[in-house]
């Protein structure tokens, strides 16, 4: 028997999409675009760990989506019934209980540009890497081979696009309210810019002058930015983010203009409020009763102390 570990190097990927225990990896749009930066480098490393035995041979087949490889024999490559199966390597002699093999992303996915991640006709595609070992005894029984499959799922499906209800602006914050989708697991993110946002462009391809917020769990999203200045108009849009990490298309942008605000005390004073702050206030003549009470209290305390002193 053998086990397999998926080892992916050199990428800063969404770790939530890697199931190392079962050797499965879901590649979302951002991961895909990251990977395709090194499309023709051998950067996707798969590791196989054998429990025992270093005799026999091994090979790898790459099963394209919708193909049906014969996993029993690494040497049966190119058979007519194995359309869609790519014989990656083998048969090789087993020389160690740990076997590493690195693949080029372009070979796994069949394309080599970041834009290719955004133009898939099918949004969920499974690429299966079948690691096949010959039995150390190399016999002809049904136990002659063992195999382990690692599945790389390219998931470019996007959630629905939310719609903005309103965008209000103060002097330093823009608040966007929108209709949430019927899925609590969905997050949201806002895009904003002082120039118009083209929502027909994929979120991942927005120009650099379009900023975006961190993920929010729901409506509203509040955008704060130290560059905000009263009088500036911002175009804002929101996207939904599904559990795979893919964002929806951008919602129809709306505008919000930053404007001066009055807090509670400013509003109070602007209305003619008389309070002037500070910690001391001189009591006017008409409140002599109150002042007298304070004075009497102070005198009483003084007399009490004096009596204690006499004792």
């Amino acid at each position, binding site marked *: 028997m053998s086990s397999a570990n998926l080892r992916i190097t050199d990428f800063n990927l969404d770790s939530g999409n890697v199931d190392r225990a079962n050797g499965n990896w879901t590649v979302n749009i951002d991961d895909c675009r990251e990977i395709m930066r090194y499309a023709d480098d051998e950067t996707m490393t798969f590791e196989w760990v054998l429990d025992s035995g270093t005799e026999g041979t091994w090979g790898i087949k790459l099963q394209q989506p919708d193909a049906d490889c014969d996993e029993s024999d690494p040497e049966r490559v190119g058979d007519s019934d194995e359309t869609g199966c790519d014989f990656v390597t083998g048969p090789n002699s087993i020389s160690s209980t740990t076997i590493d093999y690195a693949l080029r992303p372009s070979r796994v996915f069949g394309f080599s540009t970041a834009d290719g991640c955004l133009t898939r006709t099918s949004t969920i595609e499974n690429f299966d890497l079948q690691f096949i070992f010959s039995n150390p005894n190399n016999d002809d029984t049904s136990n002659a081979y063992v195999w382990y499959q690692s599945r790389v799922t390219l998931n470019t499906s996007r959630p629905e696009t939310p719609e903005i209800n309103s965008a209000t602006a103060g002097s330093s*914050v823009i608040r966007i309210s929108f209709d949430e989708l019927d899925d609590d697991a969905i997050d949201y993110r806002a895009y904003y810019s002082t120039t118009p946002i083209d929502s027909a462009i994929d979120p991942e391809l927005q120009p650099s002058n379009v900023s975006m917020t961190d993920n929010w769990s729901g409506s509203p999203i509040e955008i704060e930015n130290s560059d905000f200045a009263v009088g500036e108009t911002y175009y804002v849009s929101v996207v939904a983010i599904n559990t795979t990490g893919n964002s929806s298309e951008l919602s129809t942008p709306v505008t919000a203009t930053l404007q001066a605000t009055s807090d509670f005390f400013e509003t109070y004073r602007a209305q003619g409020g008389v309070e002037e702050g500070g910690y001391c206030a001189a009591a006017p003549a008409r409140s002599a009763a109150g002042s007298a009470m304070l004075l009497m209290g102070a005198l009483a305390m003084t007399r009490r102390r004096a009596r204690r002193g006499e004792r």
Partner: protein
Amino acid sequence: MRGPVVMTALAALLLSVPAHAEWDDFDEALQSDITSVLELRIGRYEPAIDEEFGGDGAYNAIFDGGNPLHVEAGYERQLYRGFGSAALGIAGGWARISGSAIAADGTAAPEDTRLILAPIRLSAVYRFDYLQRRFRVPLVLAFEGGFTYVLWSAKSENGVSDASDGAGGTVTGRGGTHGLHYGAGLHLLLDVFAPNMARGFDRNVGVNNSYLFAQVRRSNLNDFGDETSWDLSDTELMFGLAFEF
């Protein structure tokens, strides 16, 4: 409507008091000395800031006339015990309310604004517990009056507010407002519901009596009518626990 309900609830509580003999065993002479009272109370505080504007000013516009939760802790030192008890006490409270700032176009802005109130009270307190001690009636009337100083702070997203003084300067949104308060409350002695537990509470912790109470308190807080002071007055209904020890 509330009156009959409260009376019914009170009657039910009194009827649930354990057998008279059991409570009679709770001899005051066996208790430790009583010198102090610790009180924890909670209520809602709605300062009368908008009275300055005929009842509809900034407080109503921004806080929607809200009455934030007001929590308070107090300590009293009893100076006399005889026909009732008399004490001097100090208490500190805290209340906070927040709302949306107002944008230039008159709408609610995304920025928050807050008002924080921290009343400090010095009080003279009289507790009429004669009926409790003499006739085992588990009710005590308490009266208090004294001086209040409210520390307050008005804040925006950027910290303490700075408002225009109308002459090119600014007025900082924090300060203190003082005045007087007075009130009356009804305390229900909890010991009668669990005399054994009450005895243990005294023996182990030194708490002689525990009370659940309701109190109505009027505070007149406007710097004794100073014309540069706002009005933080209010009449509060507060509920709490008191421990005599």
